[in-house]
């Protein structure tokens, strides 16, 4: 009880003294703000990338690939694809046809509007059920491609960021002219992606095998049943993945790198900020030597002094953390970046901001330890005698 009373008295004294020690106090706030700002903006890249990657994931959508092949390097024969379509558990459309698309992937070139730089954008050949397998795909202009024709539809992002994907534009692929007949929007996805009829694409690229098959199941609970049905058929050298797994695997290198860089740079900044606040707190404690010695002399315990100093340190970190989060949000939230060919927007989300604040509290606590110890061990007699 006495400890609490002593602590409250000390703590209110510390707080009322902050204006006189504005320099060191500001140092802590600024240091923590910079560290948290950097950490939060770096983490915002990761959270933005994830939001973008997983935004369209559906639990009932599965991807069938050839064994051991992930993403777009598989080869699935027409017989295998036909066998997959007749498997149970697949959702049926109004006319009783299975909601399955066979896909083939081929890169095509896009030229960035801003820089003129050429990059590859994925061109996917897809079957007729595309809109049912991907209900998030919404035509915003023009119409769907027709079967057997050299027609393409491109996401709005393509048209916005690259030349040559506007409605009516013609592109030459393997000596054939392909016309962009429609533009679509895929909700959260900001990737440029182009679709065309799978059979036309395969015949012009001289291919006989599909790269993968995407299906929607009657319900997401049917995954195990469907997976078992694929395994049970000896003619199928295929494996089934949930859409989320495929995407997580595809983006694992990017996410891993973003996380590593965020925590690495964030940790360095945090160390620097902690060192800075140790220094500032030392000078605060030093400037209060006489005050502290007086308090000790009239009977305040060292524990109360330690706790009060630690609390002051942690408390000073809080405005720094909030300032850092606010700066990160103001400067970087929704900023579009496209590192390593993936484009996404930074997202300063509440969990990211919360993590930044937790880090800040730790910086305050760790930074306060040594100064608190010194504050509690002010030699009473010498400190009182000093001028």
């Amino acid at each position, binding site marked *: 009880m006495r400890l609490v009373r002593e602590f409250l008295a000390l703590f209110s004294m510390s707080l009322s003294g902050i204006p006189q020690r504005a*320099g*060191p106090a*500001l*140092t802590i706030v*600024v*240091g923590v*703000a*910079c*560290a948290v*700002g*950097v950490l939060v*903006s*770096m983490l915002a*890249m990761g959270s933005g990338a994830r939001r973008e990657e997983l935004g369209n994931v559906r639990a009932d959508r599965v991807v069938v690939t*050839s064994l*051991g*092949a992930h993403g777009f*390097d*598989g*080869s699935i024969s027409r017989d295998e694809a036909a066998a997959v379509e007749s498997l149970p558990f697949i959702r049926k459309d109004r006319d009783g046809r299975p909601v399955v698309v066979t896909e083939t992937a*081929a*890169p*095509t*070139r896009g030229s960035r509007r801003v*820089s003129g*730089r*050429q*990059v*590859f954008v994925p*061109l996917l050949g897809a079957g007729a059920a595309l809109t049912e397998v991907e209900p998030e795909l919404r035509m915003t202009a023009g119409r769907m491609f027709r079967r057997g024709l050299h027609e393409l539809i491109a996401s709005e992002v393509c048209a916005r960021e690259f030349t040559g994907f506007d409605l009516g534009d013609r592109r*030459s*692929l*393997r*000596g054939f002219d392909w016309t962009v007949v429609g533009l679509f929007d895929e909700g959260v996805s900001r990737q440029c992606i182009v679709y065309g009829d799978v059979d036309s694409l395969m015949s012009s*690229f*001289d291919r*006989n095998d599909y790269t993968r098959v995407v299906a929607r199941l009657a319900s997401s609970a049917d995954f195990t049943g469907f997976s078992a049905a694929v395994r049970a058929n000896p003619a199928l050298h295929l494996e089934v993945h949930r859409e989320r797994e495929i995407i997580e695997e595809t983006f694992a290198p990017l996410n891993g*790198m973003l996380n590593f*860089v965020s925590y*690495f*740079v964030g940790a*360095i*900044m945090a*160390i*620097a*900020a902690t*060192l*800075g606040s*140790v*220094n*500032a707190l*030392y*000078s605060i404690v030093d400037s209060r030597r006489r005050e502290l010695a007086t308090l000790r002399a009239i009977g305040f315990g060292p524990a109360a002094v330690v706790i009060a100093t630690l609390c002051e340190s942690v408390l000073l970190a809080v405005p720094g953390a909030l300032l850092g989060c606010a700066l990160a949000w103001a*400067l*970087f939230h929704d900023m579009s*970046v*496209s*590192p*390593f*060919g993936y484009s996404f927007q930074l997202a300063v989300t509440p969990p990211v901001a919360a993590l930044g604040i937790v880090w800040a509290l730790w910086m305050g606590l760790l930074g306060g330890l040594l100064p608190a110890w010194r504050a509690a061990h002010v030699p009473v007699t010498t400190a009182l005698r000093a001028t």
Partner: protein
Amino acid sequence: MKYLPLVWSGIWRKPGRTMLIFLQASVAFALFGMLQGLKTGAAQAVHQARADLLIVHSRSGFASSSLPLGMLGQIASLRGVKFVDPVELFGGIYQNPSQKIGIVAVRPNPGWLSAFTFRVAPQYAAALANTRTGALVRVRLAKRYGWKIGDRIPLQTNVAQRNGSTDWAFDVVGTYGDSDVGGGNDTILVNYDFIDEARAAGRGMVQHFNVAAADPGIASTVEDEIDRRFANSPNETQTDSLREMAQQNMQSIGDLDFLVRAIVSAALVALLFSTATMLMQSMRERTTEFAVLKTIGFEDRCVFLLILAEAIVIFGAAAMLGLGLATFVFPFAGRFVHGISMPGIVFAAGLALAVLAATASAALPAFLTARMSVAGALSGH
């Protein structure tokens, strides 16, 4: 020189405080070194990439079997082309699906190495040319799987042989290194002719051609000439030099320029703020000492420079430590960008920045101290 002891004793007046400033500055400079090093290192890597090595691929993208081998003769006959080699790429799996291996099929005809960035010992190059089923393996790959010359390595692929099997076996005949910026690590080199004859589909096709231009100066002319030669044909080409491709690769990191600059500025702002406050505090504590110095004849300018020198010494030493640390850990941070190293210019820039930062943070406290009135300071006001 005679002022050195004075500067030195000033620095160590409060060792704890000085060490903390020193450490904080070191950390900030380590961060600067790493981030700036990545950026400058990337630019240097682009500069070092060969401009005379051209990659001719299909305009519709990089895909296996996308151009007919017959184009080889047509490219070779163009002016300025020194050497052309076909390249076909496909993926293989060694033992289990997590052990992916890139299979690069080339024609090891005399002079082929001029069209690649590979480093191959002459006896290994000869061995590959003489062994149809031979393979050269990346040094690191050989080490990882313990492959030795004479070993036969079985790989599962997506490419079917004429007998229907998709398993291929190659005989290790040597090792090779690759100086390319973007080159993969887990790759083996095999004979294109062997692959092409044995495979069931896609015969006579290649993924791309590697072309060595006779002279880097005419590389861009050669590029245009190749693409013009195949314009409006079913096999339209896109030719880029290795340097252009490296540039595109590195540019993708360049998008983060703004972020890198923001981080470095944040670290510096925090550092400057903290140091300036500490120096102010230090000056206040030492007012009497400086007043004494001025009394015994030190000019204002001299006092100013003394204080500045203290800050520069601390920051300079911190920058050395921090940049040294950055150089040391650079290979770890640089693992995401192949083939770049810490550029010396970053070190120099870091030291210059240290002097600048020291001046910026010490200028105000130094100025105030140098200008103070001696009488006031000595009488305790």
